[in-house]
Structures are given as C-alpha cells and as structure tokens.
C-alpha cells in the first residue's frame, strides 16, 4: 500500500497536482488518524498502556494497513478525477457514442449556478409573500414552482439548441489515431500493473 501511495504521489506531482490537493484536507487526516487509533484500541491484545487506554502493537499495524488502503484508494480516485476536466469527460462520452450524456453533463454543470439562483429566488418570493404562515402550502408551491421553472429553462435550451441544428444523437467522432507515445504509455501502465500485482502477492 505504501508503494502504491508513493507511485500515486509521483504520478500526481508529474501530471495532476489538483488531485493531490486531497492531501491538504484535514478531514482526510482526521479519518486516517481515527482508523489507526481504532485499530490500536480494538484489534489484538493490549501491549502498551496509555492512561486508561490499552493499545496493541498488532492493532496498530492493522490500523496502519487499513489507513494505508483507504489513503491509496481515495488518492487514486482523486488523481483520476483531478486529471480530467469537463471537456475531457465530454470527449470521452463522445468517443463512447454517448454524446447525449456528455451534453447533459456539460449542461448540468453550466446551469448549476442558474438553477441554484432560481431556487433561492423562489424561496425568497414565497417567504416575502407570507408563505411561512402555512408551511405545507408553501412547500407545495415551492416544489411546483421549482419544477415548472426547470421545465421552462428546458424549453429555452431546447429552442436554442434546435435553431443551431444540434442533435445529440448525430455526429460521429473521427477514429482515434494510435500513436507511438500511446503505445509507450500503454507499456508503462502494463509494467506498473504487473509490479503492483507482484507486490500485492508478496
């Protein structure tokens, strides 16, 4: 696990610094510390006494193993996602023939702020019109208005996309050229996988 985490950190330093931001998170380290502590307290027979707490060496090792596994998995996930942008996601979906899903994701990300604002305005309007005196009616009105407004946005977007002749089911991506650098990368990744697998077997 240590070697895997080290490989990931090297990868992150070289290609995806954004993915390494996870290591600055105090929550992650609190979780790691909690796992190590839990392992020391709960697994194995106590070998060291620290005040009222009995800590075990075996448990400490198991705690470190659990924390290492959690760190390696979370870091791998963070690096993988951190090295991709929205455009990369859309391009990947395009290549997989899921142009519509890429379009829907990009649309969702770009409209996140607008929808958030729409929800806030709806809530404030209901509040200013004394909706809080009848909370259930206010909730019902809020939900209906939010969904109706979302559908209104949908119609606007559909109209805009239609006049530009956009069709999410149309358009084929050009074939992906496989270059020499891709083959080198493939070879390196295969080598890394083999090394990690052999380390895991030991």
């Amino acid at each position: 696990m240590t070697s895997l985490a080290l490989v990931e950190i090297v990868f992150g330093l070289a290609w995806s610094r954004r993915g390494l931001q996870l290591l600055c998170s105090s929550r992650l380290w609190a979780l790691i510390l909690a796992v190590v502590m839990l392992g020391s307290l709960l697994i194995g027979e106590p070998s060291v006494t620290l005040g009222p707490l009995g800590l075990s060496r075996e448990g400490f090792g198991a705690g470190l193993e659990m924390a290492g596994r959690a760190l390696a998995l979370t870091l791998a996930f963070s690096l993988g996602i951190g090295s991709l942008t929205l455009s990369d996601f859309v391009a990947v979906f395009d290549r997989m023939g899921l142009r519509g899903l890429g379009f829907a994701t990009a649309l969702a990300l770009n409209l996140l702020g607008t929808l958030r604002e729409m929800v806030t305005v709806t809530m404030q309007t209901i509040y200013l019109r004394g909706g809080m005196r009848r909370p259930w009616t206010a909730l019902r009105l809020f939900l209906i208005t939010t969904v109706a407004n979302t559908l209104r946005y949908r119609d606007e977007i559909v109209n805009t996309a239609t006049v530009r002749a956009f069709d999410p089911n149309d358009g084929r991506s050009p074939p992906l050229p496989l270059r020499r650098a891709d083959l080198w990368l493939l070879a390196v990744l295969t080598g890394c996988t083999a090394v990690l697998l052999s380390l895991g077997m030991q």
Partner: protein
Amino acid sequence: MMSSYTLRGWVTIGLFGALWGAVELTLGSVLHTVYPPLASTPLTGLVLSGIGVAIALTGRHFVPKRGSILLIGTVTALLKLLSVSGVKIGPVVAILVESLLMEAILWIAQTPRPWAFIVGGALAMGWNLPHMFIMPQLLLGKNATEAFGKIVQQGDQLLRLLGLNLSAASLVLIALLLAYLLAGAISGWGAWQLGDAVVRRLGTRGSTTNGGEH
C-alpha cells in the same frame, strides 16, 4: 437505447441531474459541516437521499423512458466528482446505486405507476443502511470486519450494563431501516404527486409530439 432519447429528453436529464447536484453540493456541504462524516449520523443521508430520490423520480415523470433515472444519477455523480469541494467516493457510489435501484423497479413496472415510484424510492433510500457498512469494508479492507466486530461486542457489554442485550441494537438497526424505507416511500409518492401536479398546471398531459415526454 441512448439514441431513443430526444434533445428534449437529454436536456431534461441534464437539468434534473443539476437540481440533484445542486442539493448535494449546497445542502450536502451544510449538513456535512453540521454533522461531520466521522460522526456518521444517519440524518445527513436521510435528508440528502430523500430529496435526491424525489428529484430523480420527478425527472422520470418528464422523461418516461428506460434508463432515464440512471442517467440523471450519472449526471449528478459526475457533478459531485467535478465539484470544487473535493472527491468523495462514498456519496458518488450512493448516488449511483440509488439511481440503479430506482431504475430497476421502474424497469420491472414497465410503465410509470405510483407503486413503482413508492417502492423504487423506498428501496433507493433503504440502500443507506447497507451503505454505512459496505463502504468502510471496501475502503478499509478485511481488518475493518474485526474492528467492527469488537465494537459490536463492546456495545453488547455496555448494553448488558444498562440491562439490555444485543437485540436492542438489532432493534435500533431495524428501526433505522424502517425509517429509511418510509422516508423513501414518502419521497417516491411525493415525486409522483409533484410530477402530476406540474403536468396538470402546465397542461401538457397527453402530448404525443415528443415521444411521450412532457
């Protein structure tokens, strides 16, 4: 399957995914700050899943095609991954599994029906309980089983001191599961009612010009 979706369908999927994503990113951040993840309180999951399930099922009302809930869930999961708050595996897995469960029930029901929304919502929210045990197992490995076993043993000893036994803990878990199922059923029923109310108000029921989409 994907090519059967119209432009209108994809836009609806994107917008409902964005709505669920907005709830996860705003309300989720607030709730995770109030109730830190280490405390693992079921309330955060209950509130976020309840709203998310209702949004996804309402979205299905407007894109009545197979796979639409799964696609709404996928868009939400991608938004969660791309958010600036950092990558969290747990919520992403939960969103995907919940949408998969809802989709499975609606697939069995063939056409959208109130019972399918209720059962789908209940099952999706019911996932929250196994999620609390499965995710640590995946993240921490086999040692976690031993640690959790010890916690249960110590909890049992504590309960015995209070004059209770392990069945009290089982009752707590069953009560929690029932609370999740009930909340999910209410979310599903609410989504059906909400979708119906919006369709009635907008007067678009029976529209056949867009492949059954309202």
